């Protein structure tokens, strides 16, 4: 066989069962695009900004759990991708980024659109490659897929100089595609120790994170909660591990948890931390987190064990393998006293979902949206108040239903991620809850959504401000509102229409519920404009740096509606 480096890359991607690639062409990746144009198996989705391409790929990967691919050219193409890559690293998303680079002989000469993509991407990738010759591609491409999907998943970047893309290579056999390595199982002695702790604990809690979703361990985690009578709390990344309305589910923990959830954690004597990394937004002040509990920590990444909290039993292994081995050793028990205690806490300190019936108010809008969708629907969010409100009340019932930027907290994530999810599952409805601040950060992808005719519904909670910043300035900075309230009001209705997208305004309709239903049930992309008050707050709230027991508000209806 005699192929160019670019043709080789495209063929190897086809062998990896890649069917959709998001990206933008430019000078240094044109050979790659020329080869892609000849592929019958891969469809290209043209983003309008490389960060959009990165998040479209993330949306595909988050929705189906498989590595997804994005392309960018050298220089600004590569630097524009960096935020999406860093985001994937923080949330352990398998992503393959292939960037063009200036020709090998010009590297280091400050050539046009040259940047040190390799150096820039080191701290935000799981691994990266600068390819020096076409024959290396035969090894590097399968390697990249193996690394991205094995163990704790993550992004891999492959930087390919233009001359390597053009180089003709004579070779005889294709390499095997790169698939995930078998997952490590965890040490039996540790799993037995964990079972003993669970069987003898009086007040255990399951603390489930994104690792449970990544490992496909959600049914096992739910079974463990049921069998041993263990309340289960979830992190922002773990939502969907146990259905939100399951009797053992006690909601999201941490900064914007319901009071009873954090109070139950305060009271627990055993914390079964599963696929979590003790993020500060979940734990509050770490020293004061679950002060009375021994910790069993199950994670595939040895670096997470004892990183923030010392584990009484640490199990390094795939969460699914470990839970499967643990379940038969765990005794069936009703644990009535503890469950009653948690129920009493819930009755006394519930989440106050004020305005739940009114689609013109945040909780009402989210809950009414949910009532119009089934569990096949995929929910993405941007970052801010709307994200926290949705995390608090959206009835997420299955893994990979909920796609959000957890660790990096990237505003601008929601729309392109929704496009990616819709490309992965074209028959499903994808709802993107967004805010005006976030949506403007990747607004150009409206064009991509229209071009691809994806079934994406953007629900824009517009308070003409950076709401969560506004809230913090009001609560913690003496009400000195600065740089968080926009002075210009964007006309999002006209903007959506200018992109060729249908737009619905819930403020301009007599029956917002009917309008919402019409918008959600009409095929194709649309924007649903929902003005909300800038005074609306996310409560309860743990002040940054405080212990989770120091929640402010949320013990009554503070937003002032019923």
């Amino acid at each position, binding site marked *: 066989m005699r192929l160019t480096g670019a043709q080789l890359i495209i063929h190897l991607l086809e062998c990896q069962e890649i069917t959709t690639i998001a990206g933008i062409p430019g000078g240094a990746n044109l050979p790659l695009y020329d080869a892609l144009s000849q592929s019958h198996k891969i469809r290209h989705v043209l983003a309008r900004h490389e960060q959009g391409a990165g998040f479209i790929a993330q949306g595909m990967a988050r929705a189906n759990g498989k590595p997804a691919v994005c392309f960018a050219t050298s220089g600004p193409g590569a630097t524009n991708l960096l935020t999406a890559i860093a985001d994937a690293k923080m949330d352990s998303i398998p992503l393959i980024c292939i960037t063009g680079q200036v020709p090998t002989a010009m590297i280091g000469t400050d050539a046009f659109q040259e940047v040190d993509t390799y*150096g820039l991407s*080191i*701290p935000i990738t799981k691994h990266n490659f600068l390819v020096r010759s076409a024959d290396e591609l035969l090894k590097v491409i399968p390697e990249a897929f193996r690394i991205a999907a094995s163990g704790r998943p993550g992004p891999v970047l492959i930087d390919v100089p233009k001359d390597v893309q053009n180089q003709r290579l004579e070779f005889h056999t294709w390499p095997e595609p790169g698939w995930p390595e078998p997952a490590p199982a965890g040490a039996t002695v540790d799993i037995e120790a964990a079972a003993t702790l669970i069987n003898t604990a009086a007040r255990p809690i399951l603390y489930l994170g994104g690792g449970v979703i990544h490992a496909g361990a959600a049914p096992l985690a739910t079974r463990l909660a049921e069998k041993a009578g263990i309340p289960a709390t979830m992190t922002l990344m773990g939502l969907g591990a146990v259905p939100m309305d399951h009797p053992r589910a006690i909601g999201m923990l941490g900064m914007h948890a319901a009071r009873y959830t954090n109070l139950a954690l305060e009271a627990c004597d055993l914390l079964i931390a599963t696929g979590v990394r003790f993020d500060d937004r979940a734990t509050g002040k770490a020293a004061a987190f679950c002060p009375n509990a021994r910790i069993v920590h199950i994670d595939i990444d*040895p*670096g997470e064990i004892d*990183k923030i909290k010392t584990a009484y039993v640490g199990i390094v292994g795939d969460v699914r393998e470990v839970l499967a081995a643990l379940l038969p050793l765990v005794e069936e028990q009703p644990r009535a006293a503890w469950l009653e205690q948690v129920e009493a806490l819930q009755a006394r300190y519930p989440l106050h979902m004020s305005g739940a019936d009114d689609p013109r108010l945040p909780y009402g809008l989210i809950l009414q949206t949910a009532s119009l969708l089934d569990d096949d629907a995929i929910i993405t969010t941007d970052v801010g108040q709307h994200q926290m409100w949705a995390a608090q009340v959206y009835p997420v019932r299955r893994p990979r239903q909920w796609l959000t930027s957890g660790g990096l907290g990237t505003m601008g994530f929601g729309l392109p991620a929704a496009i990616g999810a819709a490309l992965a599952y074209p028959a499903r409805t994808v709802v993107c809850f967004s805010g005006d601040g976030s949506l403007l950060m990747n607004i150009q992808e409206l064009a991509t959504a229209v071009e691809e005719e994806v079934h994406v519904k953007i629900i824009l909670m517009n308070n003409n401000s950076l709401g969560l910043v506004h809230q913090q300035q009001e609560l913690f900075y003496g009400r000195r509102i600065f740089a968080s309230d926009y002075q210009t009001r964007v006309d999002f209705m006209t903007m959506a229409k200018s992109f060729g997208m249908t737009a619905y305004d819930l403020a301009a309709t007599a029956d917002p519920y009917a309008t919402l239903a019409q918008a959600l049930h009409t095929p194709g992309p649309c924007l649903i404009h929902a003005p909300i008050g800038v005074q609306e707050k996310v409560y309860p709230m743990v002040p940054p740096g405080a212990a989770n027991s120091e929640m402010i508000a949320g013990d009554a209806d503070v937003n002032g509606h019923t």
Partner: protein
Amino acid sequence: MSTGTLKSHKPMHARDAQAVLELTVNNHPGVMSHICGLFARRSYNVEAILCLPIGSGAQSRIWLLVHADHRLEQMIKQVGKLEDVHSIQRHSANPEVFVHLEKFFRT
């Protein structure tokens, strides 16, 4: 190698606890950057560093001299996760790999 403005520790004194780390790594142009960057961005100073190819030259041995503070266990785990690192070993006793180099560093 110094981490410049990120440096959070005093220069090493004789009484400070030190640790010597021995790594076996792939030998290619990005490896040092991966390892040194990991220490640098956690403002963990590397006091001394030695690197030479071993065997056929496909791999290198790296020796690092670092402070042994409470973050060292986490650093070792993170270094161990790098794709280009085949092994990392902490030597509790000073293996003296740096001792004989002192004559090259007299001011």
